[in-house]
C-alpha cells in the first residue's frame, strides 16, 4: 500500500503545441490508474501553473467555436472536478496583470468541490520537493 505523487508543472503556452493539453489529460488519467495497480496502491497527480503556463487557465476560451476542439479551460476544470490539487503561481499572475477573476478557479458549475489555489512560487517549489516525480511541459 503506497501512494506515488506526481507533480505536473505546466509552463508552456496553450495551443501552439500539444504539451500543456496533454499534461492535463494525462494528469486526469491518474483517476483510473488503479486498474493497473495492486489494491491500495495509488498514483496522485497535482497540477501547477507557472510562467507562460498560467495562460492555459484563462476563462472563456473559444476553441470549440472557432476550431471545433475542446479547450484547455475545459481540461483545467476537469482537474478540479476530479479533485486534483491545483496550484497557480502568484508572482506570474502579477507579472501578467491577471487575477483569480480571469481564471478557472473551481468546477462549481459541474458540481465539483475542489478550488484552485493561487500561491507564491515557494509553495510550488515545496510541491515539487514532496513529489516523487516531476513532469514539466
Amino acid at each position, binding site marked *: 500500500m503506497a501512494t*506515488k505523487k*506526481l507533480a505536473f508543472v505546466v509552463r*508552456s503556452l496553450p495551443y501552439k*503545441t*500539444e*504539451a500543456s493539453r*496533454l*499534461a492535463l*489529460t*494525462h494528469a486526469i*488519467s*491518474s*483517476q*483510473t*490508474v488503479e*486498474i*493497473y*495497480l495492486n489494491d491500495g*496502491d495509488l*498514483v496522485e*497527480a497535482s497540477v501547477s501553473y507557472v510562467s507562460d503556463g498560467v495562460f492555459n487557465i484563462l476563462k472563456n476560451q473559444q476553441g470549440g467555436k472557432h476550431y471545433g476542439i475542446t479547450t484547455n479551460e475545459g481540461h483545467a476544470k476537469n482537474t478540479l472536478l476530479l479533485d486534483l490539487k491545483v496550484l497557480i503561481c502568484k508572482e506570474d499572475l502579477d507579472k501578467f496583470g491577471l487575477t483569480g477573476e480571469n481564471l478557472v478557479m473551481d468546477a462549481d458549475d459541474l458540481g465539483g468541490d475542489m478550488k484552485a489555489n493561487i500561491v507564491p512560487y515557494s509553495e510550488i517549489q515545496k510541491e515539487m520537493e514532496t513529489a*516523487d*516525480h*516531476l*513532469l*514539466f*511541459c
Partner: protein
Amino acid sequence: MGKLTIGTFSSLVGSLSLDFSVKLAEAAVKKGHKVDFWMSGNATMLAKKGQKAFKDYSYLSKTIQEMIATGNFNITACEACAEARGYHKEDCPDGFLRKSMDWYLASTFEADRVLHIGGD
C-alpha cells in the same frame, strides 16, 4: 538496476527530441535497467509500421526492435492519439502496445526515475 519511465510527446522526424529519448532508453537498457517508453501526441508517429528509411531522416525501428528483444523494454502508444492520426491496430509495429493514458501513470508507480519530454 532500476526502472526508467520515459514519456515522449514530440514528433518523429526532424525533431531530434524523439531520437534523444530512444537513444537514452537504449543506453539505459544496455546498462541493465528496465525502461517503459510511452508515446503520446505526435510521438505516436513512431508507432506506425512501414516507415521507409531515408538518409535525411532518422530511422529508429531497428534500435527499438533490438530493445524489445531484451525483454527489458516496453513501448506503448496512446491509443486515442494514434487513432486521431489514422493509425489503427494493424498499423502498430510488432511488439508495440496501444493503451489509454493511465498506462503511463501506472508505469510511473514503480519507476525509479521518470523523464517526461513534454513539448514538440
